[in-house]
């Protein structure tokens, strides 16, 4: 099987990492689709970096299996990582070497074709003019960009970025977002690990939410916004009568008024579209004017808190 035959660039099954009694990554099943920006979102200490470290062969898994670009890791780690670029936590360099020499050192490990990419990578991240300065004179933002340049030496099919905007100013963060999207537009896959909801929401196509070492949700970003507690918003002429009608409707778990709007939460086992149509019909039949009826779209932040809070309560 060639690397491009698989629809997923990353697949893990039951991936687990324990440090003594403490389970940091707990049976993670993850599927990262090819050619997407994929968010790996979770609070600090959720096990995001540990999972990435296992994928990259920096630490061994306690249990489970993983494939990177279709190849099993660690059995075929060398071949798997040949087309993977990564920044794990903050990128580190030899401070007494120039930016270019730091890239030459890594290119030496990757092979001559990686060396040929050095100038292009430096230019792409805007460091061509400072390439021959020692890294110890670089700002944090410049080091982040040099880290991206280093990861591009692999001509990566998959780019793994762990908290890449840490320490960047707003302009730097914006530049980073644009760069990530441009990489995806080139057909690469970017796995973006972050605890920053805003950062993930603005960049990714799909995501997994991780908490206490477990993936608690994964799918397209649109699904997570729509798939929370299923709530519909009804802008209506008479809120009190609407609440009275909805109180007798079998699909409604609860309803509350807010100005000229009623927020109605559906039972989890009902089909949302059919329920919304039926509610609309009954309200019209009751002589009410419906100005708007729409699903309540949760922000990623709302959904994230909803999911992680629920897990915390269950525990």
């Amino acid at each position, binding site marked *: 099987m060639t690397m491009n035959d698989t629809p997923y660039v990353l697949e893990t099954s039951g991936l687990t990492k324990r440090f003594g009694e403490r389970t940091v990554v707990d049976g993670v099943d993850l599927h990262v689709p090819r050619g997407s920006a994929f968010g790996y979102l979770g609070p600090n200490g959720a096990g995001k970096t540990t999972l990435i*470290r296992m994928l*990259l*062969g*920096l*630490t061994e898994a306690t249990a489970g299996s993983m494939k990177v670009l279709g190849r099993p890791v660690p059995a075929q*780690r*060398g*071949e*798997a*990582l*040949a087309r*993977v*670029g*990564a920044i*794990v936590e903050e*990128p*580190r*360099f*030899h*401070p*007494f*070497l120039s930016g*270019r*020499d*730091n890239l*030459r*050192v*890594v*290119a*030496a*490990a*990757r092979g*001559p074709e990686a*060396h*040929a990419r*050095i100038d292009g990578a430096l230019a792409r991240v805007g460091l061509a003019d400072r390439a*021959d300065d020692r890294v110890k004179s670089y700002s944090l933002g410049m080091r982040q960009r040099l880290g991206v340049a*280093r990861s591009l030496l*692999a001509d990566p099919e998959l780019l793994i970025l762990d908290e890449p905007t840490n320490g960047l100013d707003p302009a730097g963060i914006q530049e980073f977002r644009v760069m990530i999207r441009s990489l995806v537009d080139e057909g690469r896959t970017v796995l973006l690990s972050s605890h920053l909801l805003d950062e993930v929401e603005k960049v990714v196509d799909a995501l997994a939410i991780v908490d206490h070492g477990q993936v608690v949700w994964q799918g397209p970003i649109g699904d997570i916004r729509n798939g929370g507690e299923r709530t519909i918003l009804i802008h209506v002429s008479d809120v009190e009568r609407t609440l009275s009608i909805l109180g007798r409707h079998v699909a409604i778990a609860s309803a509350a008024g807010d100005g000229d709007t009623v927020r109605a939460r559906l039972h989890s086992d009902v089909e949302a579209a059919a329920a919304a149509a039926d509610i609309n019909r009954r309200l019209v039949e009751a002589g009410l004017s419906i100005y708007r009826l729409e699903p309540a779209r949760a922000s990623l932040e709302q959904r994230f808190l909803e999911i992680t809070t629920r897990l915390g309560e269950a525990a």
Partner: protein
Amino acid sequence: MTTAEHRPIGLVGAELLKLRKRRGLLISTFALTVIPMIVGYLVVLLMHASDPAKHDSAGGVENFAGSVEMLALLAGVAGILVGSTLGSADLGAGVFRELVITGRSRWSLFGARIPGGLVFLVPFVLAGFAVAAGASFAFADASQATPSAASLVESAAWVVLVATTSLVLALGVSAAFSSRGTAIGILLAWQLAVAPLLLSIDALGGLREGMLAAAVERLRPAEVGAELAVPMSLGVALAVVAAWIVVPLTAGGWRTATRDA
């Protein structure tokens, strides 16, 4: 245009690059190999010039033997500095994980440090040796014997051997302990204080044959040699040196290959 600074390098070249761009290490290595030879001969020249009757001229095999002994001692220290840097620099800077991420085998990353370190260190050692050898001829008067060609070759090889064993020992120890400072401390204390002390204790008898210092002393060329503290066969000496190279390297390599990066 491809300049020297932009030329592709392999793993060994990368190790060499990391060493030669460390200004402090470059100066220290020069100061431990070439400068002592220059200073040593300058002192003897001045002494001879000030009182020729009391002090022989600076050349000849006797001064050469003393210079080689001093060079071997200091080249050993230089080997410890270079080896301990090789063993821990990537890890200390956090760059080791960046190299592991490339997918390259950890053993090959570790293995490249040995030739990289030797390519850096040996030219300094040979330069120091060249100063000593040149001076032994240039400043010899008619009454002084000069080193033979065989002695020159054997002495050069012996000094390089001393530097090499120190380098690989320090590389292995610093990789095993993941600490440059710890490796330097342990090895300097061992080579400069503990080993000479143990060698002088006759009660230890044949146990001393297992010491690197005793084996290296056995391999020292006769023309620049001294009386052996621990007599042993050539085969045993070679086996002991080999063991002191292989064991620490294996320990350091294993630690590098298995540790969390």
